């Protein structure tokens, strides 16, 4: 790259990889939780909702601390992970995926719940009365009708997953070439007085985020005018 020679592009690729994986988890697990919250009544629903919202309000350091305790090498979960994958979770890039997931899942789940609640229940009732199972109704009726909203939320989730800093540095650390994501690399560049590197990376993050948000906006607007028609 002539514009920015001697720049290590690893943080960019790592961030894209981490955000992609985190978004995949957000879309699958998050949509499932949003469906449960929007369509089911059960004991402890408000508690589950509060637990899902918690990462939004807790300081990243607190979240990171919980994660270190929960999946650290001394914990049962950490042991299980290590036994399964042959390496500990903390201070690896995989831990950055968990951090990015925690950063973007709460907002996705809250908004996806509203999108799924917005699907006219009569379509779902019609499907049920025709004999379709709940599973089939979800895949063939609810999800296609909610798809536009959910996919633009997915784009926002990806953008948000790119941006985690606090939890990432707590559980994945700042190991150049291994766990150093874009936002961590920016922090590192500023701390070490490398202003030029910081400026380039900041510009990249901003351009990527803008290029994700812009089309996502179009999708939501198309959806609104589609409903009005």
């Amino acid at each position: 790259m002539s514009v920015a020679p001697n720049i290590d592009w690893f943080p960019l690729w790592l961030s894209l990889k981490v955000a992609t994986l985190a978004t995949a988890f957000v879309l699958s697990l998050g949509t499932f939780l949003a469906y449960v919250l929007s369509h089911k009544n059960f004991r402890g629903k408000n508690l589950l909702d509060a637990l899902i919202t918690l990462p939004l309000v807790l300081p990243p350091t607190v979240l990171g601390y919980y994660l270190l305790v929960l999946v650290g090498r001394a914990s049962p979960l950490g042991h299980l992970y290590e036994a399964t994958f042959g390496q500990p979770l903390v201070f690896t890039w995989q831990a950055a995926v968990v951090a990015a997931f925690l950063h973007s899942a709460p907002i996705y789940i809250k908004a996806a719940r509203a999108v799924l609640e917005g699907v006219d229940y009569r379509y779902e009732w019609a499907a049920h009365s025709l004999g379709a199972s709940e599973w089939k109704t979800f895949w063939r009726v609810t999800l296609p009708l909610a798809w536009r909203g959910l996919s633009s939320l997915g784009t926002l989730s990806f953008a948000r997953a790119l941006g985690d800093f606090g939890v990432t540095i707590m559980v994945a650390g700042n190991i150049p070439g291994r766990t150093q994501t874009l936002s961590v690399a920016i922090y590192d560049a500023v701390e070490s007085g490398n202003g030029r590197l910081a400026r380039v990376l900041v510009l990249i993050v901003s351009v990527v985020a803008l290029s994700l948000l812009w089309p996502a906006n179009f999708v939501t607007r198309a959806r609104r005018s589609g409903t009005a028609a």
Partner: protein
Amino acid sequence: MNGIDARLLKRLPADRNGQEFKLDVHLQAEPGITALFGPSGAGKSLTLNCIAGFARPDAGRILVDDHIYFDDAAGVHLAPQRRRCGYIFQDHALFPHMTVRENLRFAVSSSATKGSSGLNRRRRINELLEAFELTELASRKPTQLSGGQKQRAALARILVSEPRVLLLDEPTRGLDARLRDSFYQLLKETRDRLRASIVLITHDTQECF
């Protein structure tokens, strides 16, 4: 006994005005068309919802063609999927992202007849499209249909799933006289074809026949 025999008791919690609602109804409907009419808020829709399984009564028993759908004493509450109630909603609730044919295909692949071969299913769909004059419109989405065409498509979708009873919640609300007449003509034909109980909610005593 053929038809519907439903005794329902359901209390709804007090609303904002502190009004508690209590539904206490005994509905019997033989094969043929039965009209439920009365003022708004009398519990007509709730009655249909209880029969279809969308709402659960607090007490009572619902029998349809001698099948027990609900019995609080025996702890029976059949899922809507297993009741074979053809439900027509006010705006028909045709799936907007599917064509007319796909709507019917969804119904036939979900229904009790889903065990039949693909050829039989296709034949059944084609028969119903033909009978309801929808063959030319089969590849259209619901938004590209007129009010009358939507009615026909909704009825065809219900019939392809071979329901035991038809439940219709104000199917002609907001339609002009001409469409209303054609809908009732269609419903009479359906009654003759299906020989099932049809329960209809209406506000219009003129509609009862």
